[in-house]
């Protein structure tokens, strides 16, 4: 009691500017400390697993073909990187994703726009689109192989198909959910059709559209790995098939690590873009 009574006047007497910074630094320290502690907790399990892995290898619980030592995986990763094989394969996979996303997003936005804007087009096309979109991409692949062979065209077609569906669905939904008021305002200002699309429909549908793009790119990544495992002579999936055939599990594990890393980077990049987009949106309204 006596301590508080003696100290509180002191705090009150000191200027507010001086009283604040220590508190803020304290809070900052607390928050960073909390974050660091959280990150450290998150690292416990992977480190534990890594330790178990190393321990299992050292005590030869399993054959090397079934469980390669962590060190071997690391060395393969380094060798592949130094020889440039890894970069060239990643580059091939990423360029496939890039092209397919470009085609798929353009087609999906156009289709979604047409479905959202024209009631007649929707009546004719939507039922067919809905049925076709229910089929898993994997289901189309045998048909695509028969018509396109197992070359680059197959990969681009299969991955594009994976992108088109979510982008179309989300664009269409985004347009369907545009508040009526916005369109009425546009009518009051006598916007032309192009102006309505460009200034009202697209900006309002953009968040939904972008979430479609994000889903689409993630689906593309899933299909890419599948197609490369099924029929390919280059790319990150092929690297894994190759390792599997040579019974070199270290190559397979390297493939998994790379695929995981690219997945994380893709996801983060798209989230960042989406965040920027929503920031813009909040500022605009």
């Amino acid at each position: 009691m006596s301590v508080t009574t003696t100290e509180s006047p002191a705090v009150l007497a000191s200027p507010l500017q001086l009283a604040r910074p220590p508190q803020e630094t304290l809070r900052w320290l607390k928050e960073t400390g909390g974050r660091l502690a959280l990150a450290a907790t998150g690292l416990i399990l992977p480190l534990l697993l890594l330790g178990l892995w190393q321990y299992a290898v050292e005590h030869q619980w399993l054959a090397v073909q079934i469980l390669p030592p962590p060190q071997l995986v690391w060395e393969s990763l380094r060798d592949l990187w130094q020889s440039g094989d890894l970069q060239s394969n990643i580059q091939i996979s990423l360029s496939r994703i890039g092209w397919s996303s470009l085609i798929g997003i353009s087609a999906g936005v156009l289709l979604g726009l047409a479905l959202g804007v024209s009631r007649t087009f929707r009546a004719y096309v939507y039922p067919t689109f809905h049925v076709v979109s229910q089929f898993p991409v994997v289901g189309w692949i045998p048909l695509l192989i028969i018509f396109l062979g197992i070359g680059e065209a197959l990969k681009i077609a299969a991955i594009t198909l994976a992108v088109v569906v979510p982008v179309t669905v989300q664009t269409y939904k985004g347009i369907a959910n545009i508040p009526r008021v916005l369109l009425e305002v546009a009518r009051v200002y006598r916007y032309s059709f192009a102006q309505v699309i460009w200034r009202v429909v697209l900006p309002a549908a953009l968040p939904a559209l972008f979430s479609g793009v994000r889903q689409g790119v993630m689906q593309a990544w899933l299909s890419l790995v599948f197609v490369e495992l099924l029929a390919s002579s280059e790319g990150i999936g092929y690297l894994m098939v190759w390792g599997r055939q040579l019974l070199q599990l270290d190559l397979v594990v390297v493939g998994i690590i790379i695929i995981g890393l690219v997945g994380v980077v893709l996801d983060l990049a798209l989230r960042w873009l989406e965040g920027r987009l929503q920031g813009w949106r909040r500022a605009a309204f």
Partner: protein
Amino acid sequence: MSDIAVSRHPLWWLHPAAVPKRLRGWVIPALLLLLWWAAFRFNWSDSALLVPISKVWQTAERLSSSGELWTALYASLRRDLAGFAIGTLVGLLVGAALGLSRLLEGLVGPTLNTLKQISLFAWIPLISMWFGLGDAAKVAFLSLAAFFPVVLNTFEGIRSVPPELIEAARVFGYRRDQILRRVVLPAALPSIFTGVYLALIYAWLATLGAEYLLTSGAGIGNLLTDGREHFWMDYVLLGIVIVGLVGFALNWIASRFEARLLRWRGHSTAQF
């Protein structure tokens, strides 16, 4: 009024608005079928890839009377459901544990989020080394495919239960198990269902993928692979139709089930 204006034109029946609204959705499928049929009737192409609709039907009859089709379908569905059941069960348990304990979330969450980013099919080479090419490998893979959506959505569902609800329950003096059963579970159920629903879809996708990549035993995927290798279009088309039908059936069952379990929500959402 516009109908009359359109019908005056000699080609009025080509106008999109000429078709009755209810039939519009059928126009594209009907045209495609007509095109397919016409390609035979008038011998547009000699390609072996162009098979008549009747041949697909005959193949379906032949394979179904020989039992080959049913064996394949049964094998695929059995492993699909086995993997789905295991993955969903484990996903529910892990998701609930992570949702209810901050400590577990801190321990396991980051690892899980990283593993989630690994494209699903990338696990196949590893799984095939560990479990071979048989049913064990496929079921293991399918469980993994079903596990991720369930665990994430269960976790999200539990975490997004409004704190006011839990406070209210505390005020009423609910015990912990009562809070779980009467507040947390009902509030998290829609999200959990989204996860289970996604798991069902993913498991079917993964079933096909696993059957293509781990080619051994029977299954719809193997039927498709056979057809593709021998350029039997009728097999491939039949396979695709069955894939679609099974997907639809699974979807339908899941949505019925969801509607039933979440019936109590129906009115409140309808009012908004």
